[in-house]
């Protein structure tokens, strides 16, 4: 027969301070665990959303990032003329030849400098990136020293808001608009006219090219043909793959750091649960003896104590998760090691993370409660009753 659930619940309630402290310690561990998972998910989502599956990005072979890459005009024309490139509504090829540089800007709140990606785009860029929408002001005019800033860039950097100006490449650039890129990496960028930026930076070459495929199935054949073409020294990737690769180092770093911390911290919390449960068993020796004398089996006693430990874990898990969910209000911005530029992303809570976190909390409880529960179930009835 099972020991009633209310017995377990009341036991926790009687030792409020102890329950609170144990669950509190667990809640902190769960908070760290959930936060790291949310951070990794946020980073992944930001960069996955940046690319679209049908778009192909072309960079110089072994350049790794757009900033390091270089594609000269002759090569660009060759790539543009491939038959796989889709045509737009106006019959023009859906190709964007872009120049990407890093500009050192100061943050608004701390005045500390950081690298911001400035992307020179062509007339087709917006068609290729449907997620990018002007939310304030207007788009820059081709041929003018005008720029538009992504939502995060406008917020974070001095001189990147509408009506403000930035000085680089011996020119003053007027910020005429802010765009929203649906929480993708473009939100951390500044966009201008490619030809104007190439002039200002004295760079007669493009950095990278993006084009849309006619038929997405043609990618592998096109990639093989372009990369084996003797006239080209380039590498073609699907945009989604390219951006996922870009975040690889940062995501791995966050994951390793998070897993290491969670393991170390959970040792602390498990020890806390163990101490609590051992004490709980010790102070209830006579009670356990009585339960056994009443006919409850060893397995029932074991189950009751395991349940109690698990409940501690669940309470800690829920509190920790509740606290962690508030982290969604924050946006974190840091340098992406690979692209060497600032990237803003937010904590993202998904159902999968919720399940993982609660499981983690329960496992902590069970691991902490297992040995004490075994001790409780092994007590001999006579000895236990005598202990009172």
């Amino acid at each position, binding site marked *: 027969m099972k020991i009633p659930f209310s017995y377990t619940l009341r036991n926790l309630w009687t030792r409020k*301070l*102890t329950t609170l*402290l*144990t669950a*509190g*310690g667990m809640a*902190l*561990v769960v*908070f*760290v665990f959930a936060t790291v998972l949310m951070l990794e998910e946020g980073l992944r989502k930001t960069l996955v959303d940046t690319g679209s599956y049908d778009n192909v990005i072309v960079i*110089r*072979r*072994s*350049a*790794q990032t757009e*900033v*390091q890459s270089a594609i000269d005009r002759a090569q660009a024309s060759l790539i543009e003329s491939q038959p796989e490139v889709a045509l737009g509504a106006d019959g023009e090829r859906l190709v964007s030849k872009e120049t990407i*540089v*890093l*500009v*050192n800007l100061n943050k608004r709140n*701390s005045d*500390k*400098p*950081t*690298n911001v990606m400035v992307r020179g785009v062509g007339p087709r860029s917006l068609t290729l990136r449907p997620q990018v929408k002007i939310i304030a002001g207007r788009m820059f005019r081709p041929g003018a020293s005008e720029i538009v800033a992504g939502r995060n860039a406008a917020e974070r950097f001095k001189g990147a808001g509408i009506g403000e100006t930035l000085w*680089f*490449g*011996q020119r003053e650039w007027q910020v005429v608009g802010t765009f929203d890129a649906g929480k993708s990496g473009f939100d951390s960028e500044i966009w201008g006219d490619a030809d104007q930026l190439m002039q200002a*930076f*004295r760079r*007669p070459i493009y950095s990278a090219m993006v084009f849309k495929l006619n038929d997405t199935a043609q990618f592998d054949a096109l990639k093989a043909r372009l990369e084996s073409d003797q006239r080209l*020294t380039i590498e073609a990737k699907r945009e989604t793959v390219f951006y996922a690769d870009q975040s690889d180092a940062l995501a791995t*770093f966050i994951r390793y*750091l998070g897993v290491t*911390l969670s393991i*170390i*911290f959970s*040792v*602390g*919390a498990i*020890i*806390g649960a*163990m*101490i*609590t449960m*051992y*004490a709980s068993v010790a*102070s209830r020796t006579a009670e356990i003896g009585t339960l056994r004398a009443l006919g409850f089996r060893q397995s029932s006693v074991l189950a009751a104590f395991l349940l109690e430990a698990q409940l501690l874990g669940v309470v800690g898990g829920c509190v920790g998760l509740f606290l962690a969910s508030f982290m969604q209000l924050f946006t*974190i*911005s*840091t*340098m992406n090691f690979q692209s*060497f530029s*600032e990237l803003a992303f937010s904590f993202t809570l998904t159902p999968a993370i919720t399940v993982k976190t609660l499981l983690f909390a329960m496992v902590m409880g069970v691991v902490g409660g297992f040995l004490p529960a075994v001790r409780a179930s092994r007590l001999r009835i006579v000895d236990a009753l005598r202990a009172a």
Partner: protein
Amino acid sequence: MYYLKLIVRNALRHKLRTGLTVLGIVVAILAFGLLRTVVDAWYAGSEAASKTRLVTRNSISLVFSLPLTYSAKIRQIEGVNAVSHANWFGGVYITEKNFFPQFAVQASTYFDLYPEFVVPPEQMRAFLRDRKGAIVGRKTADIYGFKVGDQVNLRGTIFPGTWEFVVRGIYEGAEARTDTSQFFFQWDYLNETMKKTAPRRANLVGVYIISIASADRAAEVATAVDRTFKNSLAETLTETEQAFQLGFVSMVEAIVVAIRIVSFLVIFIIMAVMANTMAMTVRERMAEYATLKALGFGPWHLTLLIFGESLTIAGCGAAIGIALTFPVAEGFGKAMGKFLPVFNVHAETLYMQVAAGLIVGAVAALVPCVRAAHIRIVDGLRNIG
């Protein structure tokens, strides 16, 4: 003496519980120490920076370069002792995972500016004679097994192609905080190759390193340099080496701040565990405390006993944790050597660990003390724990 005996006996009454608590504190103090050391490692570059070195880069950002001709102009500026230059190379050794910083440096001047990189004179002479020569830091040489005379090939990411180098020297750090993970080769080799393959990118320098006579003149010289190139095609930004290095740290500030916060969280977690232990201990002994009170011991005696026990347990844990910090940090530093070239435990970290141990012990005893001190003798004697 008498109190001490009582405290130790009390602490050892529940050996399992005390043992577990001590273990928890050991883990927490160790984790705290490691996290602080990781944070310190980010700042290693700026700490090792010399006060008499300035770094001049393109004012737009580091990815833009400066003309080689600036070298002569900078040398003319008053207060400048010597000038050298370097380019970030960013090559890949076999695969992307094998990261170590590589710089093309002006061979004849660079090492004079960096006395902390100690190269044996005969190795230095061999390096200067070989256009494809390279000097590698001890740490990187150990990780990849580079020896003098070895050929090392790097695949260029910024400068296309496969580049061949021959290790001509291995430099040691003059101090423990010197970064010995870098790979230096001749700037002339880079430049001559670029002249052949991409003439547009030849004669360009990533950063100039300026040695100044005294640290007091840093601001003055930096302004003079930047004024010289104002309104040119490549405007400059000159700052002290320390500010230059801190610029990199500030870009990943969010991560550094997060690690800092987490390092305090672990102390909070263990505080909860420790407080729990003390709360349970005191609850079980209420009857004893009432007896002591009945015998005439005042609340202060009880407070002393409980505080003493809490501090003893926390102190033991902290001491073991601190002792373990050194070997663990060394192992961790070896494993993470590629990413954190300088990984030393600072004295400050030790002080903070001691403080954390004391605070955990003291805070944990607070509520139990108040309870024990305020209990009425009758209630205490009636208490059955």
